[in-house]
């Protein structure tokens, strides 16, 4: 499918203008690559990112343990290269662990001894607690209120990537309740750009789409660098198949809401890798953080942030001249 081109219609807004001031201390992060790309593509992607001004970069295979274009040593080598360039590098664990071999791999990742971990299921959380290591809770860890957040914070969680269905009002409520209870919150990260991870299954939907089972997948997903598009029978964009993960077809784009995000106390905006054009996306968000008005990308959604239906797009602020 076609990569999303975020800047097709607002090149002007992406160019920093003089006289604006940075309104927040929010930082940008790059989420783990969700798709199965050939090794050269992955390495090229991170070589490109390396030269960028400092980012938080999450990496590692989070979707399917059969995807082994890069083994753990190769991921760690990439992590070192990025850290040497001044980035904050975090290694992410698999989101759904079924086999004993996958659990062993998760444990060895936690024990890498060098890089901080993003835990994407409670198995990883347990391994981290046993070793008293600090960690980031990924979007798959269900923390829906200030008490649960505080529980894991007391056990080493220093950053939380919010569950995707939670938005602004929710975050404000968490802040308010935490303040009243005298609780300190961890850093808060939010899904600011990319297709939303909506569901996980034992089944590989990409293999199913070509009439195969997961055990006979023949790595069909390597032919779909941004997954497979699912629309309704009327042609309405709906979902995106990515192996055992189901994503939204639409990109969630919160770039136009930088002020709201800062006001709600978001610390980090997470941008998910896509096959082409992530540079432009990063520029777009840097521009937003610098205080420039941005219009949301065409076809993008932000319903979850508004506390509404996830696939809806809110009223766009008409801030462009």
């Amino acid at each position, binding site marked *: 499918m076609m990569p999303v081109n975020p800047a097709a219609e607002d090149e002007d807004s992406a160019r920093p203008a003089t006289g604006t001031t940075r309104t927040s201390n929010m930082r940008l992060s790059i989420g783990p690559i969700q798709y199965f790309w050939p090794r050269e593509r992955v390495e090229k992607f991170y070589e490109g990112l390396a030269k960028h001004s400092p980012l938080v970069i999450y990496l590692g295979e989070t979707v399917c343990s059969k995807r082994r274009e890069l083994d753990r040593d190769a991921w760690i080598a990439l992590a070192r290269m990025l850290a040497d360039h001044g980035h904050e590098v975090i290694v992410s664990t698999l989101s*759904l*662990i*079924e*086999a*004993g071999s996958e659990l062993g791999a*998760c*444990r060895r990742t936690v024990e890498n001894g060098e890089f901080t971990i993003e835990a994407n*299921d*409670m*198995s*990883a*959380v*347990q391994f981290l*607690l046993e070793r008293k290591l600090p960690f980031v809770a990924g979007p798959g860890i*269900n*923390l*829906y*209120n*200030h*008490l*649960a957040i505080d*529980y*894991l914070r007391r056990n080493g969680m220093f950053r939380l990537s919010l*569950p995707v*269905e*939670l938005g602004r009002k*929710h975050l404000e*409520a*968490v802040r*308010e309740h935490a303040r009243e209870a005298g609780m300190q919150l961890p850093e808060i990260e939010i899904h600011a750009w990319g297709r*939303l991870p*909506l*569901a*996980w*299954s*034992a*089944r*590989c*939907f990409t293999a*199913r*789409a070509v009439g195969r*089972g*997961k*055990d006979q997948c023949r790595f069909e997903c390597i032919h779909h660098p941004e997954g*497979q*598009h*699912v*629309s*309704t*029978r*009327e*042609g*309405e964009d709906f*979902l995106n198949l990515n192996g055992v993960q189901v994503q*939204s077809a639409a990109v969630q784009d919160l770039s136009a809401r930088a002020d709201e995000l800062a006001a709600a106390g978001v610390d980090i905006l997470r941008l998910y890798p896509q096959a082409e054009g992530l540079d432009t996306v990063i520029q777009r968000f840097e521009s937003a953080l610098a205080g420039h008005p941005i219009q949301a990308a065409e076809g993008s959604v932000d319903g*979850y942030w508004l506390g*509404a*239906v*996830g*696939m809806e797009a809110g009223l766009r602020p008409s801030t462009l001249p």
Partner: protein
Amino acid sequence: MKLVCPAGSLPALFEAVDNGADAVYLGFRDTTNARAFPGLNFSPRDLARGLKHARAAGCEIFLALNTYPTCRKLGQAFDAVDRASDLGADALIVAEISVLEYAANNYPDLRRHLSVQGSATTPAALDFYKQQFGISRAVLPRVLALQQVEHLAATAPVELEVFAFGSLCIMVEGRCQLSSYATGKSPNCDGVCSPPEYVSWSESAEGRSVRLNGLLIDRFEADERAGYPTVCKGRYRVDGRLMHALEEPVSLNTLDLLPRLTACGVTAVKIEGRQRSPAYVGAVTRIWRQAIDRLASGRQPAVDPQWHKTLSGLSEGSQVTLGPYQRAWQ
């Protein structure tokens, strides 16, 4: 092997108890549980009556408190824990950290089961919930193959309960946002999936269309059986081809796996269906009771072919599957 059966109403509870359930699980009439549908679930008064009936038959009552309360709903969730304890429930089925912590701190003697919504699939994840909150049992998400269930049963630090029969969630429970993406209402926050108030049916020359919040989930010809528009059971176009991209409208039936589930040490099998009728609950409970008793007696055949026929007739779309327990399904 223990048989855990659903009840969405007092008559359903009577059916489950009278047909041989070892335990009945149910929820309060609010959004503290994952079947928060209109007209379903228990008032404290109903629960007291149900408990009395169950006690007399030696049947246990498990209270499902398995949504993920947001800050504003924490009071309601903790209140539900208090009520469950006051009324004398035998166990709580809980998914969320703060509810587990509250129950463990305030009612240490009230058994805590990790809900399927807690998404725990490994010994390490079970260790977490046992060490932190003292859970004694966990309900497994419907993602593990039978062999993986057997491996887990051999090392799990707590009792295991697995889904045996009923509607089939094909996504990891507790980690599915398909409903909230389409309707804004989610299993985690609201205790509902693809809720009925968002469903609309219409007839046209093209067939019978069913929509969820306006989104076309499927369209049926006159001779096709029309199913409920759960997002994961819809027909969509994948790269232009029309198909059940995620799953067909089928139900789970693991009757044939009962011997292996029993042999590997799984503690309990769970029947899905708190939204189903008392008659349904009674019929399904009766067959599974017979199957468990037959297996324990060693009589052959272990599975009566008539049981399959009856269960298939009760299933969504009349089609059944072994689901993820069988690797070919995956």
